[in-house]
């Protein structure tokens, strides 16, 4: 059978005519149904996200409209109408500070070593596999690590007074360890994507390895590395399971220190996700509302962080490809 092309009616018509003759005029129903199924599953995720946000914001609305400032600056209370988030914000702030101070330099350093210095030996491969496995360890197991090492073994270092090791220091160290593999993996990927011609140019003018890394590799890999750092902060912010084992306070906190008071690091603590858990599990009147309000605060922070990370990555991906 010959394919005829009525070229006179324009290219579109020609295309359609060829397609009709190839498919004998019938539509590809299986293909259409299949494609709609695929779209529906993606649409499902979008729908879930929308439902979740509407559900949470709807429940939280009265708290925000009635006592927004009071809620943000109030402390943990047994009555929902008086309770506030402040201590959780402070706790989460300090936990993130530990992640920034410990996990960032350690993680980036390890990534630089593995990508730029390490030869492809058995030991290097072991370290790489080890890091991938660490990334897959459930967060609650990190909680066991934190409990055994920081809360119990190093109690005298991590706590003051009656805190018994259940302090911000223990929590911060535990979460820094938890996000370390994520930092290493994302930073390694960013460093690996740096073209080797850049390095060779540096070596060509006599720079040492570290000079090349500092002046060429790191600046080029920076957007990718920073994306990973932001994602790991977001992860640390939402992580509750390890904090439960390390001993975050779920009841009232004795002290109510200011944000930057360093004394509190060795005192008992709480954090945003712990507060969310506690209020969600509390069956008394009004706690579902403040739980939802706490979630909105947490989601705003986490979604902003994630969005910045995604935008940063997309921007540089486009620029360089």
């Amino acid at each position, binding site marked *: 059978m010959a394919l005829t092309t009525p070229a006179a009616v324009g290219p579109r018509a020609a295309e359609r005519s060829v397609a009709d003759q190839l498919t004998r005029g019938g539509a590809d129903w*299986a*293909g259409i149904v*299949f*494609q709609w199924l*695929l*779209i529906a*599953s*993606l649409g*499902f*995720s979008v729908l879930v*996200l929308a439902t979740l946000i509407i*559900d*949470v914001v709807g429940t939280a609305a009265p708290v925000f409209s009635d006592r927004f400032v009071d809620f943000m600056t109030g402390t943990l209370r047994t009555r929902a109408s008086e309770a506030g988030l402040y201590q959780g914000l402070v706790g989460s702030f300090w936990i993130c500070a530990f992640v920034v101070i410990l996990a960032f*330099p*350690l*993680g980036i*350093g*390890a990534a*630089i*070593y*593995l990508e730029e*210095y390490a030869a492809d030996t058995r030991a290097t491969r*072991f*370290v790489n*596999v*080890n890091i*991938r*496995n*660490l990334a*897959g*360890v*459930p967060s*609650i*197991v*990190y909680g066991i690590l934190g*409990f*055994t*090492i920081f809360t119990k073994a190093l109690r005298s270092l991590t706590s003051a007074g009656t805190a018994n090791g259940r302090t911000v220091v223990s929590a911060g160290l535990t979460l820094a360890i938890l996000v*370390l593999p994520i930092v*290493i993996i994302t930073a390694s990927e960013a460093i690996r994507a740096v073209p080797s011609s850049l390095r060779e140019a540096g070596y060509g003018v006599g720079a*040492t*390895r*570290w000079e090349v890394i500092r002046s060429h590799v790191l600046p080029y890999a920076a957007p990718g590395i920073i994306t990973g750092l932001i*994602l790991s902060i977001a992860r640390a*912010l*939402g992580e*509750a*399971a390890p904090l*439960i084992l390390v*001993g975050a306070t779920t009841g009232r906190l004795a002290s109510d220190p200011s944000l930057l008071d360093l004394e509190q690091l060795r005192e008992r603590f709480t954090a945003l*996700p712990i507060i*969310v*858990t506690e209020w*969600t599990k509390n069956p008394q009147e009004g706690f579902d509302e403040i739980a939802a309000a706490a*979630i909105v605060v947490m989601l705003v922070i*986490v979604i902003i*962080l*994630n969005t910045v990370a*995604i935008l940063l990555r*997309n921007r540089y991906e486009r620029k360089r490809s």
Partner: protein
Amino acid sequence: MAITLEDLRGDRRRVRTERIVRTLLTAAAGTSVLISALIVFSLARETWTFVTEVEWATVFSSDGWFPRRGEYNIWTLLVGSAIVTTVAMALAIPVGLASAIYLSEYARPRMRKVLKPTLEILAGIPSVVLGFFAISFISPEVVQRFFGATSLFNLMAAGLAVGLLSIPLVASVSEDALRSVPPALREASYGMGARKITTTLRVVVPAAVSGLVAASILAVSRAVGETMVVFIAGGAGGGTLLETSPLEPGLTMTAAMASQATGTDAVVGEALTFQSLFFVGSVLFLITFMLNVVASRFVRRVRQSY
């Protein structure tokens, strides 16, 4: 001017900086090994005490998981974890896989640019939030309405919420696998006159199958290790009977550990209660570790073939 060996050795200070930096970076890479050692050490000591001192009858044939009463029926927790994981995977694998196929094979670039970030935002939502969503929406509006569960707290709602958490993971790992299938394979298929659906299902998906299996295994591992959703929405507090219905409250390994740590002010208890937490932790660690090793095997297979 002649160049001597001394000149080639370079500036003293620069050489020293180089050596210091190298040592620091090596130490940084070494910490990851130290962390693994610490994890194993933390788990091993108390687990060993538990394993050597427990009466094994209480682990395999008691009525349920009641650590404070000395009943450590591990099957209770394994069955709970299996229920939650099965429900989660029944949701996450088909939806995640279909999303990946659409993103990799069908979506136009502009569509991709909108949909992919949506999945990434969903991936970034903390699990405590999904725990809240499970009891405020999924359980009353879906599980109780359509499956007739009597308790607001049940393993099915928890499982569905864990499934939602796992969709982005399945989707992104699967999409990577599908996109690494060389375009030549698709073109060959089109060249033979195959339709898009045939090309996708008969050529692209089989070519990427190891990656898709890896995605599923990783998702299982993630679901088994998920704590907060089940801790919030699973319902059973200090202990539970061996329960096989997904519509009843229950405990997974992770939720049992979390509720044991919160039951009183610290992780304490009589006899082996304290040690049982570490025993469950070890079982959980071994299961997820094996799953991750198997998954990385499959991932490597994808890399090798293309």
